[in-house]
C-alpha cells in the first residue's frame, strides 16, 4: 500500500489532493476522507487564532506509522495525511485524511482509525489566542477513549 504524509505551513486544495489519489486508477471503489478546520470558539471562548507546534523529527514518522497500522488492519489501496503547522485562523484547514480501498467499509473505518490515532499519538500541540490571552489546548480524555476502542475490536 502507498502512503503519503505531509506536514506543512501552507494551505492545501482538498479537492485536488483527493482527486490525485484516484486519478487514472480503476481499482479504487471507495474513497473516504476527513477534514479538520479551526473553529472560532473553544470552551465557550472566542478563538482569534491558533498556533500548531510540532516535533519535526518525529511527526512524519508517527503519521507514517499510523497509516501503516491502518494498512495492516484493513485492505487499503492508498492513504493520505496532510497536517498543517504554524499560525491558523478560524475557517482554516488543519488536517486532511484520505483513504482509498475497493469497498467503503475499509475506507470509512481506516479514515476514522487514522484520525483517532493522530489525535492521541502524533506530536502536535495547539495554542489558542483568545480575548483572555493565549493558552495551550488541553488533551481530551474522549480522544483517548476513541483511540482505545480500536484495540477492543
Amino acid at each position, binding site marked *: 500500500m502507498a502512503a503519503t504524509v505531509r506536514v506543512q505551513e501552507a494551505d492545501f486544495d482538498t479537492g485536488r489532493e483527493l482527486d490525485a489519489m484516484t486519478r487514472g486508477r480503476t481499482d479504487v471503489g471507495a474513497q473516504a476522507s476527513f477534514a*479538520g478546520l479551526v473553529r472560532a470558539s473553544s470552551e465557550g471562548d472566542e478563538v482569534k487564532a491558533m498556533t*500548531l*507546534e*510540532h*516535533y519535526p*523529527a*518525529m511527526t512524519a*514518522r*508517527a503519521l507514517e506509522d499510523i497509516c501503516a497500522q491502518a494498512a495492516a488492519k484493513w485492505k487499503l489501496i492508498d492513504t493520505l495525511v496532510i*497536517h498543517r503547522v504554524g499560525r491558523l485562523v478560524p475557517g482554516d484547514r*488543519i*488536517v486532511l485524511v484520505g483513504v482509498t480501498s475497493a469497498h467503503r467499509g475499509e475506507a470509512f473505518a481506516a479514515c476514522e482509525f487514522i*484520525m483517532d490515532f*493522530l*489525535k*492521541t*499519538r*502524533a*506530536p*502536535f*500541540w*495547539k*495554542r489558542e489566542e483568545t480575548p483572555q490571552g493565549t493558552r*495551550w*489546548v*488541553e*488533551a481530551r480524555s474522549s480522544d483517548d477513549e476513541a483511540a482505545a476502542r480500536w484495540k477492543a475490536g
Partner: protein
Amino acid sequence: MGVTLLYFASLREAVGLSREDIPLEAGSTVSALVESLRGRGKAWNDALAPGKSWRVAVNQQMASLATPVRPGDEVAFFPPVTGG
C-alpha cells in the same frame, strides 16, 4: 557521549528550556532520567510529577518509564498531544 533532551509545548514553557545535551550513566532508563530531572527544582518536579500527564519519546518513538536510554539517544518530553 551523552543524550539530547528536548522539551515541547507547555512542558517546554514550564521548565524554560527547549533543548539540552547532558551526560548519561550506562544502563540508564527513562525512569532514572526523569528522577534526576525532577531533582533540579520545583518547576522540574512539578512538570514531570508522577501524577501529572506527560509523554516521553525516545528516538522519535513513544516510550515509557521502562524504556532504556543509551548514549546518543534523543529523548523528548511533552504534554499529551492535541493535533488534528
